[in-house]
C-alpha cells in the first residue's frame, strides 16, 4: 500500500549535504540553532502526516521545504472542489485525484531531495502500529474523533511524540502529546463527545486560513522536536481564537489514571475506535426519526399538482442565501421558541442541507405534537441532484 517517490531511502545515515542542499537550506544553516548539525537532523528525520487536508497542507509544504528527510502521507480521500478553499497543497487540476498522490507530487516538485511515501488508505487499528513504527514523529491532521483517539493510542504504545492540532470554525487547539513524561490526548480528554453533539467542519464550516495557521504551528513544533531546541508544547494546550486574534495557553497534566499512558494502563493494544466513539459506520447516518421521508422527486410532483404543503427550511440564514426552495426559514436552534409560527394542521415538509438537521427538527416537532411532518430525504443537496440541476450545491 505504500508508494515511494522522490529520493531513494537513505542508507545508512546521511552524512553530508550536497552543494545544492547547502544553498537550498542556507537560511537555516546560518542560524546557530539549526546549523549544519540541525539540518542533518532534519534530513535524517522521518515524519508521518496523518491527513493531507487543511492541517496537512501547510504541514506538508513547510516540512518538505525545511528538508525533513522522509515524509509519510496518509490519506484515503480524493480532492474535491470544496477542499480548495483551504487545502493549499492542491490545485484545481487535482480535483478527483488521490490526495496522497497529488500531495506527494506537489511536495516532490517543491523539494526533490526528500523521500515521500504515500499511504492511500484509512488509518485503522489493524495498520496503525505498522504504519507509525518507521517514523520518529507523528502529526495528527485528521478530522474526526475515532482517528484522533487511534493516532493517540498508537503513538503512546510506540513511544512516538504526536503533534496534535484541531480546528473548529474560528478556534484552534495545538499540543504535543505522548512525549516522554508528558500527557497524552486521553489524559486531557478521556472520552469523545457523543456523536452529533459537536458538528464537523463539513457541517459547522471552517475559515480557510485557520487550518493554515494551526498547521503551521504544528509544523514549527515538529521541527523543534527534531532539532531539540526551544520549548515544545508538551504539557501545554495552545488555544487560538482567530476572531479575537488571541492566543492563550493552558497547563495539561499527565493523568496517573490514564487508560493508555497512566501507571496501570488498561488499553494495551489498539481497540475499535469507531465503537469507542459511538459511531456506527463511516458517516453518522441521519438520526432515527419516526417522521417519514419524502424523496425530492415526490415533493416536486406534489408541489406541481398543488398539494397544500408547508416547506420548513431549518438551515441558517446564510445558507438560505446560497440556495433555497422558497421554504419558511426557522433555523433548527430557534425552532423551540418559534414553534408557534407553525400550523400543526398543515402538512409540513422539513428540509436542511443534507437531511440530518431536518430529521432532528422533525423529531422535535413530532414530540411537540405535530403529526403531519415529512423529512426531505437528502435535503436540498438531493433536490439539486434530482429536481433542479441549476441549483448550486455547497
Amino acid at each position, binding site marked *: 500500500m505504500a508508494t515511494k517517490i522522490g529520493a531513494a531511502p537513505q542508507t545508512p545515515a546521511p552524512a553530508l549535504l550536497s552543494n545544492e542542499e547547502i544553498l537550498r537550506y542556507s537560511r537555516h544553516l546560518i542560524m546557530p540553532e539549526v546549523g549544519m548539525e540541525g539540518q542533518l537532523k532534519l534530513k535524517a528525520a522521518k515524519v508521518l502526516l496523518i491527513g493531507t487536508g487543511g492541517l496537512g497542507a501547510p504541514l506538508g509544504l513547510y516540512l518538505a521545504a525545511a528538508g525533513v528527510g522522509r515524509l509519510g502521507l496518509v490519506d484515503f*480521500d480524493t480532492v474535491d472542489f470544496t477542499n480548495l478553499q483551504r487545502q493549499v497543497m492542491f490545485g484545481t487540476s487535482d480535483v478527483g485525484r488521490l490526495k496522497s498522490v497529488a500531495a506527494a507530487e506537489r511536495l516532490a516538485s517543491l523539494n526533490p531531495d526528500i523521500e515521500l511515501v504515500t499511504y492511500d488508505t484509512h488509518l485503522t487499528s489493524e495498520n496503525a502500529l505498522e504504519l507509525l513504527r518507521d517514523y520518529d514523529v507523528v502529526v495528527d491532521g485528521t478530522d474526526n474523533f475515532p482517528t484522533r483517539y487511534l493516532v493517540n493510542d498508537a503513538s503512546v504504545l510506540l513511544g512516538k511524540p504526536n503533534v496534535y492540532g*484541531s480546528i473548529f470554525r*474560528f478556534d484552534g487547539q495545538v499540543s504535543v502529546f505522548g512525549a516522554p513524561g508528558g500527557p497524552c490526548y486521553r489524559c486531557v*480528554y*478521556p472520552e469523545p463527545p457523543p456523536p452529533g453533539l459537536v458538528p464537523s*467542519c463539513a457541517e459547522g464550516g471552517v475559515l480557510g486560513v485557520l*487550518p493554515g495557521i494551526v498547521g503551521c504551528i504544528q509544523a514549527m513544533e515538529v521541527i523543534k522536536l527534531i532539532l531539540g531546541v526551544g520549548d515544545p508544547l508538551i504539557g501545554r494546550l495552545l*488555544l487560538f481564537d482567530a476572531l479575537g486574534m488571541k492566543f492563550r495557553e493552558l497547563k495539561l497534566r499527565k493523568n496517573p489514571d490514564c487508560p493508555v499512558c497512566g501507571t496501570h494502563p488498561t488499553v494495551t493494544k489498539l481497540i475499535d475506535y469507531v465503537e469507542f466513539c459511538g459511531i456506527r459506520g463511516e458517516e453518522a447516518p441521519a438520526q432515527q426519526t419516526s417522521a417519514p421521508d419524502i424523496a425530492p422527486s415526490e415533493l416536486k410532483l406534489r408541489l406541481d399538482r398543488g398539494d397544500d404543503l408547508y416547506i420548513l427550511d431549518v438551515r441558517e440564514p446564510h445558507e438560505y442565501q446560497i440556495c433555497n426552495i422558497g421554504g419558511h426559514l426557522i433555523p433548527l436552534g430557534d425552532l423551540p421558541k418559534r414553534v408557534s409560527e407553525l400550523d400543526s394542521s398543515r402538512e409540513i415538509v422539513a428540509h436542511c442541507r443534507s437531511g440530518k438537521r431536518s430529521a432532528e427538527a422533525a423529531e422535535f416537532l413530532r414530540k411537540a405534537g405535530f403529526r403531519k411532518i415529512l423529512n426531505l430525504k437528502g435535503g436540498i443537496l438531493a433536490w439539486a441532484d434530482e429536481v433542479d440541476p441549476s441549483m448550486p450545491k455547497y
Partner: protein
Amino acid sequence: MPIRILIPTPLRAYTNKVDTVEVKAATVGDAITALTSQFSELRKHLYNDEGRLRSFVNVYLNDEDIRFLQKDQTQVNDGDVISIVPSIAGGR
C-alpha cells in the same frame, strides 16, 4: 471584581452568542451553576445525567485544569478567569 467565564465557540449557541459571562461566586461549581441558571440550555452540554462534568469538556481556573485542583469545590477569587474548553476534532 467578578469572575469571568470564557465560553468557547461551539457552546456560544447556548449563550445567545455571548463569549464572556461575568458571575459572582465562591467556587468553580458555584460559578458554573450561576452560568447555567442564566443559560439553562448550556447545562446538558456541560454535565451528564448523573450531574458529572462531561469528559470531553474541561474546565480551567486561570491556566489550571480543575480536575487537578479541588474540582467543583475549587475556590475562586475576584478577577479569576474560568475557561470551558471542549474537545474539537476538525482538521480537513
